[in-house]
C-alpha cells in the first residue's frame, strides 16, 4: 500500500459546537492509481486532501505515504488548487521555475526543465506572458506544468477544473489523464462532478456529509481511452448515482 489513511478524524470548532469534518475515515491507495474523491460540499473531501498533502493535521488517526507519516507538506507531493495559485507578478516561465528554485537547480537547467513541461501542456508560446493574460484553462495548465516540473510522486488536485467552462474542462480532463499515465504519477483528485470522476478515476471514493465519511468505493473497470457516451460509462455513472442516492426509486411506466 502506498498511501494509507488510518481511522482519521478531523473536527472544527464552529461557534462553540464541534463540527465533524471527517469521522473514522480509512483509505488505501496504490502507487500509480488515479483516485477521485467525490461527494457533496461539506463531505470533507477537501479536508481529506489537505490531510494527505500535510496542510492539516488529524485530531485522531494517522496518514502514511510510503513508509513515512505525513506531518507537513513536501515538494514530493504537490497540490493543484482550484484558483491556480500562480504568482501574478511572475511570467508563465518563471512561475513554472518556482519549484526548481527551491531545489537550487542552476538557471540553465531550470529553464530547460520548465520549457519541457510547458511544451507538455502546450503553452510554450505563452512563456513570457503574465498569468492574468491567460484564460482560466490556460492558467490551470501552467499550474499543472509548474507542479510536474518539480517532479513530484503524487499530485493532489483540489477541484482543479471547478472554475472552468464545460468544454475547457473536458479538454483538460483528457490532458491530465494522458500526462499522468505518461509520467506515471499517483493522483488524488477532488471533485463534485460525477461524470468527471467516472471519466478520470481508477477508483471513485464516494463520500457523504454529517459526519464526513466514506460511503463506498466504485471501481471503474474501463480502459483509459474512455468514451463519455459509451454504455460502460453510463453503467458506472449509474452505479455512482445509486450510491449517492440520486436515482429516483420509483419505476417509470411506459404506455405505447
Amino acid at each position: 500500500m502506498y498511501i494509507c489513511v488510518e481511522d482519521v478524524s478531523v473536527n472544527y470548532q464552529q461557534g462553540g459546537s464541534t463540527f465533524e469534518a471527517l469521522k473514522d475515515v480509512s483509505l488505501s491507495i496504490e502507487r500509480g492509481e488515479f483516485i477521485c474523491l467525490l461527494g457533496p460540499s461539506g463531505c470533507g473531501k477537501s479536508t481529506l486532501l489537505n490531510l494527505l498533502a500535510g496542510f492539516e493535521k488529524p485530531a485522531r488517526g494517522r496518514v502514511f505515504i510510503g513508509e513515512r507519516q505525513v506531518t507537513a507538506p513536501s515538494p514530493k507531493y504537490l497540490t493543484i488548487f482550484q484558483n491556480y495559485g500562480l504568482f501574478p507578478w511572475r511570467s508563465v516561465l518563471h512561475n513554472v521555475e518556482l519549484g526548481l528554485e527551491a531545489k537550487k537547480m542552476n538557471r540553465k537547467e531550470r529553464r530547460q526543465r520548465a520549457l519541457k513541461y510547458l511544451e507538455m501542456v502546450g503553452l510554450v508560446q505563452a512563456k513570457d506572458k503574465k498569468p492574468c493574460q491567460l484564460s482560466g484553462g490556460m492558467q490551470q495548465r501552467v499550474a499543472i506544468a509548474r507542479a510536474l516540473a518539480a517532479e513530484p510522486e503524487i499530485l493532489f488536485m483540489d477541484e482543479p477544473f471547478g472554475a472552468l467552462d464545460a468544454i475547457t474542462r473536458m479538454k483538460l480532463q483528457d490532458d491530465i489523464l494522458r500526462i499522468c499515465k505518461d509520467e506515471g504519477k499517483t493522483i488524488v483528485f477532488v471533485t463534485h462532478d460525477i461524470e468527471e470522476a467516472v471519466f478520470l478515476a481508477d477508483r471513485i471514493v464516494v463520500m457523504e456529509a454529517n459526519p464526513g465519511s466514506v460511503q463506498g468505493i466504485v471501481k471503474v473497470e474501463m480502459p483509459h481511452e474512455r468514451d463519455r457516451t459509451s454504455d460502460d460509462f453510463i453503467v458506472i455513472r449509474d452505479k455512482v448515482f445509486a450510491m449517492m442516492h440520486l436515482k429516483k426509486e420509483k419505476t417509470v411506466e411506459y404506455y405505447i
Partner: protein
Amino acid sequence: MRIKLGKKVWCTVVSLLVLLAVWEAAVLVGSFPEVLFPSPISVWNAFWQLWTDGLSGSSSRVVLGVHILVSLKRFAAGYASSVVTAVAAGLLLGWFSRVFSYVNPIVQLIRPVAPVAWMPFIVLWFGIGDAPAVAIIFLAGFFPVLLSTVAAVEHMEPVYRKVARNFGLSQAQTLYKVVFPAAFPQIMNSLRLALGTAWIFLVSGEMVGAQSGLGFLIMDAKNCLRSDALLATMITIGVIGLLLDWGIRRLEKFVL
C-alpha cells in the same frame, strides 16, 4: 490618452490663473498693508530675489536653490531610511504575526504622538543641524509604511503561502520571492502616501536648530518680517511637494 492629458493641463492652468486673479483683485480692492497681505507681483519679486541673492536682511545670505538642495538631501536621507526599515520590519512582523501581536500595542501607543513632539529628545540625542529634520521625516514616514506593509502581508492570498510551503521554499526565499512581491502593490501605495506626509514634516524638522533649508527659510522670513518672501517659500514647498508626488506616481505606474 493625449486628449485627457491636454484637458488636465488646461484645468490646472485655468485654476491657477483664477487663483492669481482673485488674489490680485483682493489686494487691489482691500488695500491691506503690504506686510499683512502681499500681492502676487511682490511675491514674485521676492521669489526672484531669493533665487538670485538670497533673503536681504538675513544673517545667512544663501540663495533659494541651495536651501532647496539642502532640504531635498535631508528629505532623501530621512525618507529612504524610514521606508527601508519600515518595509523590512513590516515584512517580518507581518510574516511572524504572533510577534506583531506583541509589538502592535507599542506601535499604536507611539503612532498618535506627533513627530514634532519628539523634537526636544531628538535635539538632546542627536544635536542640531541635519539630524532633527532627518529624524522627524523618518518618524513621519515610518509608522504608516510599517502598518500598511504588515496589513498587506497579513491579507496576502492564503494560497500563495500554501504554494510556497508545498514547493519547499525556505523562510527567506518565501519572504523575498513570495511575500514581498505579493505585498508590493499595497507597499507602493503606502510609500506614495508617506512621501507626502514626510514632505509636510520637513518644514517642522527644519524650524529647530537648522541654519539652512526651506523650513529655516520660513523662520528666517518670519524673523525679517518679510511676508512676501514667506509666501514665496511656502509656494516653493508646495510646488516641490507636487513634483515629488507626480514623480512617485510615475514610478508607481512604471513598476506595477
